[in-house]
């Protein structure tokens, strides 16, 4: 018997109603059911951070939640940061300016981790930024430019 459960949730301010199998991961729901492929999947065990999204404005791993658990909740993915490429969110703009990405695989997860971080720490030190980034792996940049980009963003967003 395959159970199918009806869920209603908000993703990037838009309401969706879908039928899902309980074992469907939220990351797969976002990517495969809603076509929001900005949320990346690296490890599916919580370690890499690529799949980080906001659940009710707090960062969380979408690979460690089932889509059924998002019923009634407010989800934000990287697609929710901006409407189009000409109006980047200041955090995205800072990553572009400071070369905060190379292949870009880790970037959506890092952006979605930094959104609540900068809200809670509008004027972070380099040390605090590095600590806040500790749950996101990047295989390309060596992190220095990511740290620079977050610092730049904090200045822009003041």
């Amino acid at each position, binding site marked *: *018997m*395959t*159970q199918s*459960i009806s869920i209603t949730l908000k993703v990037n301010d838009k309401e969706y109603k879908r039928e899902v*199998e*309980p*074992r469907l*991961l939220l990351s*797969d729901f976002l990517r495969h059911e809603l076509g929001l492929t900005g949320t990346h999947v690296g490890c*599916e*065990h*919580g370690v890499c*951070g690529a799949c*980080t999204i906001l*659940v009710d404005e*707090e*960062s*969380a*791993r979408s*690979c*460690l*939640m*089932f889509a*059924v*658990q998002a019923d009634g909740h407010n989800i934000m993915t990287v697609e929710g940061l901006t409407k189009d490429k000409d109006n980047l969110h200041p955090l995205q703009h800072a990553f572009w300016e400071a070369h905060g990405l190379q292949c870009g695989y880790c970037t959506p997860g890092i952006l979605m*981790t930094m959104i*609540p*971080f900068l809200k809670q720490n509008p004027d972070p030190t380099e040390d605090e930024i*590095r*600590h*806040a980034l*500790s*749950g996101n792996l990047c295989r390309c940049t060596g992190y220095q430019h990511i740290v620079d980009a977050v610092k730049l963003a904090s200045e822009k967003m003041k």
Partner: protein
Amino acid sequence: MKPAPFEYHAPDSIEQALGLMSQHAGEGKILAGGQSLVPAMNFRVVQPSVLIDLNRVAELSYIREEDNAIRIGSMARERHLEFDSSIKKRTPLLHEAVPFIAHPQIRNRGTIGGSIVNADPAAELPVLMLALSARLKAKSKSGERWVEAKDFFAGMFTTALEPDEILVEIELPFMMPNTGWSFMEVAPRAGDYALMGVAALITLDGNGKCEAAKLVYLNAGDGPVDAIEAAESLVGEALNDNLIESAAVIASEKEINPFGNMHASTDFQRHLAKVLTQKALKQATQRAGESQ
């Protein structure tokens, strides 16, 4: 990998959750923060046939002071422990240690109950429960009981809970007056599981002598390890570097039993335990002195 199929229930009261646990005894698994269970399911290391999700049980999510103790609902998130003012004031050891657990994204979902029931020897919360002499309340459809933290952990990923029981509340007595604390660990990177870690408590009497001591270790055996002999060697004494070093030797060479892993040999773990114990005891003693 993707999890194997399961039947999903999301009760919205403890009553309903207990009913489901008794109905599915042995097969029903609690889903709390999912930060340990879901990775294991994604790897298919575990394939529970029924999941009982507690995330809608609002009555399990609280932190409050009552009768000289802090009472914490098992679904309180690790992130809430981190910022709670009662915890900071009444059990500063816990306040200091929570940020060492994983990363903010994990702590936003991970719960105190989930970490305790998971009983990972490398986890911080089981060690803190032992150090702070917690009592844990287990409930099933047929009743409830309190279990002391020292009787709760029953080996690697194993606890005293029965298959139909849910951990519902954690009771932490306020730390005693004139008590200093310290939590220290060494991890390969911030947020990783630590190679070795220690929680230390020192209570001083009116003459500045050690009245009570506690030393509990993580990743040092098949559960949190309470170094009773090392702690007792300090009681009744005016603490100095020599006494602290000899306690660190007793704990690191005699009482802990680390297994080693790909990042650290057992010798290195013992070395870390000795160094961390000395540092932690010094910090705890100093803080106990300051509070007098």
